[in-house]
């Protein structure tokens, strides 16, 4: 057996690495210290997490984990000192870095990558896990959806019986995890008026998790999330412990809804648009409730919520503004498109597609996104990123006139071109993939438009 370094020594070395990383301009130092710590001491995360007096909670999902965790943080943070990986470093190294830099924290709040969940949960031993949804995402990196679902079933099996599992009942694979579990909270949407009676193109999990028969949906809200029943074996959406009802959108600014549980109903005005953000808010409310937040804390936390890092972020640029909406997989991008179209579609958009590992090297997913409702309303589209030409083809074969497509692979030039085409006082809509979003924020930081994320996260 390898001799174990004292925890303090490993922590000190790793913290220095974080400062060096920032000084060297390599970013926020949000993963390097943790990577180093895990090498120096593989038991560090377990030991650091066990020191948190109020334990830890984990949020995972294909879409919305950063936003959901940030909402929980907003609800809890006035009262509880958190160790929270706010900048989205959600692998084991990111969790370790967060634990390192959170002196005096009472509660750990971690968004965790879907594939990393088993390993992180085993070490962190959370008192609650909130699971939001499973969509097809980066097949080249995660493998098929079923592989991730199988890992999650293992996580649910191995979770301490005293811990609480919070699940989205509207997702058949995820909702089924809480079956036969005593300590569980099931959340979902319950407002058929805001859904659709049919599934979108390329919906996942269309087939019964028990018997393989296609589900009947009485309503589908986002992708395959909805109210389903199997005509073969009767497997159906579980009863909801916490539901959103009477959803009312307010353009691109906000959405209101009733948060309903057995104790009553609470009207919430969330300052973010989109049905997917209603899901994030209900998930956050369910988890925050488990962690001891009062109804009033939940309402006020959600109502003062400021969008998570790059997810729906407005940046002022002189008289104009730039609205950044992260797109990373078909289900998430479809909701971004739907929200834009419903909230007053723009005439111009910059769409940026990169193909680094964090974006997915396989860019075929852009063909599964229903961009058409947005394209129909645009006069011009500036495509950018390393795979700008693929986006150009997506627009061209989606019926968009080739003369309206500008290919500008360099992100800074695409941003400049977009702003040049934006009317005075107007807003430029930018849809970047993950690493393109990081680069865009880097450009915005360099130009003094926003503070760097590691300062903001502090």
């Amino acid at each position, binding site marked *: 057996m390898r001799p174990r370094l004292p925890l303090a020594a490993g922590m000190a070395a790793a913290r220095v690495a974080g400062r060096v990383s920032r000084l060297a301009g390599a970013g926020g130092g949000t993963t390097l210290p943790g990577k180093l710590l895990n090498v120096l001491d593989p038991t560090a995360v377990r030991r650091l997490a066990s020191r948190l007096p109020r334990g830890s909670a984990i949020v995972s999902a294909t879409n919305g984990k950063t936003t959901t965790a940030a909402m929980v943080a907003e609800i809890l943070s006035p009262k509880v000192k958190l160790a929270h990986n706010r900048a989205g470093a959600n692998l084991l190294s990111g969790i370790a870095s967060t634990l390192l830099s959170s002196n005096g924290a009472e509660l750990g709040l971690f968004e965790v990558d879907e594939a990393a969940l088993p390993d992180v949960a085993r070490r962190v031993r959370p008192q609650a896990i909130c699971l939001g949804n499973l969509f097809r995402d980066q097949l080249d990196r995660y493998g098929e*959806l079923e592989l991730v679902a199988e890992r999650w079933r293992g996580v649910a099996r191995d979770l301490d019986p005293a811990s609480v599992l919070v699940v989205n009942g509207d997702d058949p694979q995820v909702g089924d995890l809480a079956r036969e579990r005593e300590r569980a909270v099931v959340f979902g949407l319950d407002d058929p008026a805001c859904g659709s009676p049919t599934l979108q193109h390329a919906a996942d999990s269309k087939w019964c998790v028990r018997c393989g028969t296609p589900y009947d949906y009485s309503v589908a809200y986002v992708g395959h999330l909805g109210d389903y029943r199997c005509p073969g074996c009767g497997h159906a959406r579980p009863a909801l412990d916490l539901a959103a009802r009477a959803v009312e959108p307010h353009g691109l600014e906000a959405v209101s809804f009733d948060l309903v549980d057995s104790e009553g109903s609470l009207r919430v005005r969330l300052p973010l648009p989109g049905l997917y953000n209603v899901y994030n808010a209900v998930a956050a409310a369910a988890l925050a409730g488990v962690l001891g937040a009062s109804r009033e804390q939940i309402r006020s936390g959600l109502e003062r919520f400021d969008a998570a890092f790059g997810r729906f972020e407005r940046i002022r640029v002189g008289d104009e503004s730039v609205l950044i909406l992260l797109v990373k997989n078909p289900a998430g991008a479809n909701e971004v498109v739907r929200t834009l179209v419903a909230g007053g579609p723009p005439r111009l958009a910059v769409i940026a597609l990169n193909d680094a590992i964090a974006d997915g090297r*396989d860019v075929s997913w852009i063909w599964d996104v229903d961009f058409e409702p947005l394209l129909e309303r645009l006069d011009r589209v500036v495509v950018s990123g390393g795979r700008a*030409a693929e986006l150009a*083809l997506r627009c061209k074969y989606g019926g968009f006139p080739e003369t309206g497509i500008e290919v500008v692979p360099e992100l800074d030039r695409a941003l400049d071109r977009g702003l040049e085409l934006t009317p005075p006082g107007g807003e430029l809509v930018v849809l970047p993939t993950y690493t393109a979003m990081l680069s865009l924020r880097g450009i915005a930081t360099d130009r003094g438009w926003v503070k760097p994320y590691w300062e903001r996260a502090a």
Partner: protein
Amino acid sequence: MRIRVGHLYPDYLNIYADRGNIAVLSQRAAWRGHDLGVESISMGDRLDPASHDLLYVGGGQDREQALVARDIAGKGEELREAAASGVAMLAVCGGYQLLGRFYRERSGVELPGAGVLPLHTVWGDRRMIGDVLLACELEPGEPRTLAGFENHAGRTILEDGAKPLGHVVAGYGNDGSSGSEGCWAGRIVGTYLHGPLLPRNPWLADWLLAQAIGHQTGETPTFEPLEDSLEGLAHSVSAARARARGGKAAR
């Protein structure tokens, strides 16, 4: 002219953006004054070998592919009849495996395929994932390249007399060792390349459309080229990715 396309299992096999391939066929046919009529042929549907000029089979996740496997084996006779009568076909990834004779699972059990192409696939423990570049020559004296992305665990073995679609310039290909990729037989093309395949490789879309028209009229046309500069740009970026970071075949 109306080009009659049968899209097999679009509700099950659609994992790698297969509708991108259909969109390219449809638009390029339209730009040449033809109309692409696409009919869905799914589980339990009858396949009439005489009523299609082009059949398309896409890729699915393992679960969906297993659900489809039994059904497509049951359509084997009709598919082979269509192939013998000169119907054009494009099969991608899972669909490519399903057109073969069988798929041997990890347990050794062989799942029958449609038996259209002289090949079979065996389970492998390492997935072959990455960008790919192929060199092809479907028309004598007209060498071409295909750029795409592959993600498969199965190793496909071409049997005696089977011709590959192309030779691997960069990437894994059929089995990661032979240097061959896909299968080409008359008007039929099977391949692991998605991405999707046709938008950045429009020459193959045109070849398939010409074969489909050839099936209907008895005369395979030669098309005038279209404005393909965006397609060319996407192809060159994808080809560069394959050269820089495609899987290394063990040759």
